[in-house]
Each structure stands twice: as structure tokens, then as C-alpha cells.
């Protein structure tokens, strides 16, 4: 029988020699050009990183392709970033240009460093998830095609981090992104009493609803939903397949903006909902790509150097953000969930 609980392999055996020798002794780094970092150690040793975008959902042959590149130019060493980029690592400056050429020849974009758009982190969507309100890979591909140039440029006001989650379980944790693309449901669950009678633990199902919209229905040995209290989170659907939340006619996309995780300058912040709904319009979701481009371009035009999306919006004010982007403000942008009051303007100072 195979050994269990061996844990992940020791990362130390995967580190290139230049990293092993200079581990913890890096002195500084430079952004050489978009997609290329140069780290210099106290010893004077140099490490070049070439960052390359990937579609995340890849075949094993794709992994073998990038292994071929790493074998040829990096002595077989590479890593991945938290945003699904590939990073080729070499201590040989002469390898940088040929490596970039090899990536280009394979159709792999080089960029995503410094003040650029990095890869979009995202979830599974229709590929493999059971609660999605939308696809993920398809929207990400469409948005990255549309914003492709910003991956390879590092002269944006600041870094730009876009994330996509296909429902608000948000496996992708989009809630602190410059722009969050979020799949949303808009209709209460459709109850299948038979499935609930067979398999659901009714007290847990009742208790799982954050707004108390689910109550027991003893007559049917099932549950009932007080529809006006439901905000379509889908928590009950995760508890039981008898609470069908998917709705092809009404599921779609919401856009939230202005979040960040870094502590630099200002505290980490949540993304805020500015577009409550856009339709699912596969295969290229034109309404979504257009909305994202509009927000990005407005930021590019108006932000000062060094301002993340949220820092720019907080400086000019959200009311100005809606004016500048021509995004209609509606009651749906005003919070009415648990922590709403802190978002109300308790001040007589504002702009038009």
C-alpha cells in the first residue's frame, strides 16, 4: 500500500542553485522591462525572472512545453506565481532574450510585472463547478484578450489586479481586487421536495440560511422559502441539491471595483459593487469586457501615478467615479446586508 501523509515534497530540492546559494540574502531587485525581474544578492549573484501568462486550465502537454523551455534556458528550474503565471528562473543574463523569444514563439505572453495588469485569478465555472452562475475560463480569456496590451506594459498608474469568481462562494477570493468579476444568481432556489425528503438534514438546511428565509415545511417533510428574504447566496444549494439555485435566464455577472490586499499606503480594502448585473453572453461576454475596459481606461486617464484603482476612487470620491465612468448608480449599489451602515455617507461634504 502506498504511503500516506507524506506531505508535499521538500521545496529545497526544487530550488535552482543560485537561489540555494543566496537564500535569504537578496539585496535588491530591478524591473528590467515588462515581464523581467532582476534580483541581486549580497554576494553579487544575479537572478533573472521571466514572467509569462498562462490560461491556468492547461493540458499536460502545455506543462511539457514549458518544461522544454525551462530545460533549454533555465537548467530545468521554474516556478508558478499565485496568479497562475509561470516564472522562468536563470542566473544567466544571456538567456533572457532567447527565452523571451522562445515564449513568444509558443504564443506565451511575457509581462505582468510592476505597474501592469497581471494574470486574472479565477475559479472553475462551467468547466467543473456545481454551483456556478457563469463560466470563468471563458470570461477570463475574453477579458485578457481585450486588455492584452496592459499585460505587456508596465506604465500603468499602478499594478492592476483583476479576479473572477463564478459564484459568491468565491473560491477565487475576488473580494479584494482592483476589479472583481463575479457570477451572481438572482432568483430564489427552486425546491425539489423529493430530493430534500431523501437526502437533506432539514435542521441544518434551515440553519444555513443567513437571512432566515428557509423554514421547515412539516407537511411535505421538506422546507419552504420566504422568497422576499432570500438574497440568492446559494448557501442552501451547497447544503442540498434539492435547493436548485442555477437559473439560465437570470444568472449573470456583477462587477466590483477598488479592492486591494497590499498594506502599502492604505489598509487592505474590499472591492465595491458598481455594476449589479450583466448578462451571461457566451462565448465572449461583450458586455463584461466592455464594462471592464471602460473602468480600466477611465482609471488610466484620471489616476495619478502610484494610485491603485481604489486609491484613485477614494481620492476623487465614489460619486465622481460614477460620473467619470458613466456607470448608472442605482439602489442596488447601496448595501442592505449586515454591515451596511458604515457605507452610508454620514457627512455633509461631497462632490457632484
Amino acid at each position: 500500500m502506498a504511503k500516506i501523509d507524506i506531505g508535499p515534497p521538500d521545496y529545497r530540492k526544487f530550488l535552482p542553485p543560485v537561489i540555494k546559494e543566496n537564500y535569504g540574502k537578496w539585496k535588491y531587485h530591478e524591473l528590467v522591462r515588462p515581464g523581467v525581474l532582476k534580483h541581486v544578492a549580497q554576494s553579487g549573484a544575479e537572478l533573472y525572472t521571466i514572467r509569462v501568462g498562462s490560461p491556468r486550465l492547461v493540458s499536460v502537454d502545455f506543462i511539457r512545453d514549458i518544461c522544454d523551455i525551462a530545460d533549454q534556458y533555465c537548467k530545468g528550474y521554474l516556478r508558478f506565481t499565485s496568479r497562475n503565471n509561470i516564472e522562468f528562473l536563470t542566473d544567466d543574463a544571456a538567456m533572457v532574450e532567447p527565452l523571451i523569444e522562445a515564449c513568444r514563439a509558443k504564443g506565451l505572453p511575457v509581462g505582468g510585472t510592476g505597474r501592469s495588469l497581471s494574470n486574472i485569478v479565477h475559479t472553475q465555472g462551467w468547466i467543473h463547478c456545481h454551483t456556478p452562475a457563469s463560466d470563468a475560463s471563458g470570461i477570463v480569456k475574453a477579458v485578457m484578450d481585450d486588455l492584452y496590451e496592459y499585460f505587456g506594459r508596465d506604465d500603468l498608474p499602478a499594478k492592476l489586479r483583476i479576479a473572477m469568481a463564478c459564484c459568491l462562494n468565491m473560491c477565487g477570493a475576488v473580494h479584494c481586487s482592483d476589479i472583481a468579476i463575479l457570477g451572481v444568481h438572482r432568483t430564489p432556489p427552486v425546491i425539489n421536495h423529493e430530493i430534500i425528503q431523501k437526502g437533506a438534514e432539514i435542521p441544518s438546511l434551515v440553519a444555513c440560511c443567513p437571512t432566515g428565509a428557509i423554514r421547515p415545511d412539516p407537511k411535505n417533510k421538506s422546507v419552504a422559502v420566504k422568497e422576499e428574504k432570500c438574497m440568492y447566496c446559494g448557501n442552501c444549494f451547497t447544503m442540498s441539491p434539492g435547493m436548485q439555485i442555477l437559473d439560465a435566464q437570470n444568472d449573470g455577472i456583477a462587477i466590483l471595483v477598488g479592492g486591494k490586499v497590499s498594506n502599502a499606503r492604505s489598509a487592505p480594502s474590499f472591492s465595491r459593487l458598481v455594476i449589479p448585473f450583466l448578462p451571461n453572453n457566451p462565448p465572449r461576454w461583450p458586455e463584461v469586457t466592455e464594462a471592464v475596459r471602460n473602468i480600466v481606461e477611465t482609471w488610466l486617464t484620471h489616476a495619478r501615478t502610484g494610485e491603485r484603482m481604489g486609491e484613485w476612487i477614494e481620492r476623487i470620491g465614489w460619486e465622481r467615479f460614477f460620473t467619470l465612468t458613466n456607470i448608472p448608480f442605482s439602489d442596488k449599489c447601496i448595501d442592505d446586508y449586515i454591515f451596511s451602515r458604515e457605507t452610508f455617507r454620514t457627512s455633509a461634504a461631497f462632490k457632484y
Partner: protein
Amino acid sequence: MPEDRKTPQLDELEKGPWPSFVTEMKRAAAKNPAADDLLGLLERSYEDKIGHWKHGGIVGVRGYGGGVIGRYTDLPEEFPHLKEFHTMRVNHPSGWFYTTDALRTICDIWEKHGSGLTNFHGSTGDIIMLGTTTDELQPTFDEFSEAGFDLGGSGSDLRSPSCCVGPARCEYACFDTLDMCYDLTHEFQDELHRPMWPYKFKIKMSGCANDCVAAIARADCSVIGTWRDTIIIDQDEVKAYAESGLNIQRAVCDKCPTRALEFNAETKELTVIPEDCSRCMHCINMMPKAIQPGKEKGATILLGGKSTIVKSAFMSWVIVPFMKMEPPYTEFKDLIRRIWDWWDENGKTRERLGELIYRVGMGTFLREVGLPPVPQMVFRPRANPYVFWQEDEIKK
């Protein structure tokens, strides 16, 4: 691929400059019938605008309660190879470093036993093996184990811890994120592989407050590198930045959130008011050659981060402002075990740690896990007088 398989909508996503996942699916489909069925199923979702996966059933490998996600399509007649299409999560190495040998081994195993489709990586950090049958799970695991890889977490357990690139390549790292991630993952194999808690639990380690793994947004326990003393300024390098054209006053000092930096334009010297600095990383990011973190390094421990479901998204908040982070991480491990015990005792089903603390109050939490309240835990104190006084604080 069956001759009659048409995917006109997906074909549209092979156009455009960004690398295409559809192209990747087709590469896998050329070798594997399940990957080919997946193309067909996804095309169907694009037509129907709805997902075609049922809830997971319980599947797994011997000795494990997590690590495998059961997946079954709701259209098994049309897509017979997706009748069972389970995901296996393989625990990634710290910092996602690989040799090509290791990656090729993973590819060979997965090509033999599964669809040949993967995610490098899933959101939590694992290598995602996307799609195989129930019968193939054990043989797949056996080969991964033989090759030195193990499963990651799933369900109500510790999820695979993950960390930033840390001291392997970053001069900002205030502790060894890779070692700590490796050490904790090995220490807590039981918690990782056998779900026993109210819900999932994530630990993520970032070497500095730039937080490149988004620990504060995503992890129930976020470990974020910091220092206790003062930033170190190299005045020669400051001059070099000034001469290279960086507007230090505007780009660095004016953006300092606590106005802790002063730049003398005549002497080109930069000084810090140490007690005013909040260690946000901005000045270091702008002038990495000239400014370094202080010497007394460690980490801030924050708790409660999670995504929206159920009670809104939470960001982790400070519970220990500074802790030394050195092997064998005993102080941290003792603390996290106390916290888990308390959560396990008090949490409701599907209640993340942050939601539990919010429900019962920070005061209760701090008393019960034995942590001293300090002002670093809050942005500002409460604005109401509704204090829960303890019995021993009141005259009888």
C-alpha cells in the same frame, strides 16, 4: 475526437492573443475521451448558459477523508466519459518551485490515469488534477505517493497552506515563509487529510505587508511578515535614486500614510520618524535599493479572513502584533491548536472562525484562548458603552 463533435462557441475562444484554455482542452481531447467529452459538455453549457455538474458524492482514497472532489455530470448519457469526473488535489511544494523532472513526472502520472487536464494551480494553491473515474483514484494516488507527492485538503479540514516566494527570491521577506509553510503542512497532516472541523480552515504566509498571497483576504489565519524596530536607510542609495530622477518628496514622502518620512532636497537625505512608521512597505517598494525592513523581524498574526459566503467577506484582523517566526514555530503551533480547539468546540456547521469570533465577540475569544487585548487589534475603540462585564469585575 468524434467526427461530429462541433464546438462553434468554444472555437471563438481560440481566437485572440491570450493563450487559450480551449486549445488546451483540445490538446487533451486528442488523447483522452473524457477530455473530449468535457469539450462537448462545456459547449453545451455555453448554449444552455448553465452548469452541468451535480453535487459531489463521497469518493476518496484509502486513509483520507479529503483531497478528492467527487464530480458527476447531469448528462451522463450524452457524455458517458463524464459520468465520473473527479478532481484530485495534489499538495504543491512551498512557493510553487519545481524542477522540470518533477513536473514531467506529474504529467506522466496524470496522462496515464486521468483526463490530462490540470490547473497550475487551484486558488488555494494545490495542483489540480481535473477529472478521473472512481476506479482510477487509488492507482493515481498510489503513483503520486510513490513519486513523493501527497494530497491537499478539501471539505471541512485544513486546506493546503500556501506562501509567497519569500526568502527564495525576495529581499522583503521578514521570515522564511517557505520553511514555515513546509513545516506546518507536515506538522498538521492529520488536520489536512481528515476533515473534522465545522468548516474549512486556511493558513497563508506572506513575507511582508505587500501580502503577495493575499493572506489577509483569504486565510482564516494570515501570517504576515513585519519588523519591530526601524527601517534601515542607505543614504548613498537615496542620493542615487534622487539623481536618477525619482521625485522622492512626491512619490515616497507624500504617499507615506503616517507622514513618517522627511526628505531634505538640499542634502538629499531621507530620515524617518521611527515611532510614526506603521511598516506599510510603501517606501521600501519605491526604493528597494535604499530602504530595508528593520533587523528585528517576525510576523503579525491575523485571524478571520474569508470570502463572502455567508456573513459577508471578512478580512483578517490582528490578534498578535508581533511574533518571532523561527523553526520549530512552537509558539505559533501552540496558539493555532488552542484556536482550533475553541472553534471546534463553539463553531456551528459551516461557520468559519472569523464568523464565530464575530458572533460571540472578540472579548470572549481572547479570554477563552488566552490572548491579551492590545490596541493594535483595532483601528479604533468601540463607540458604545455596552460592555460585557465579567463577574469578577463587579462588586457583589
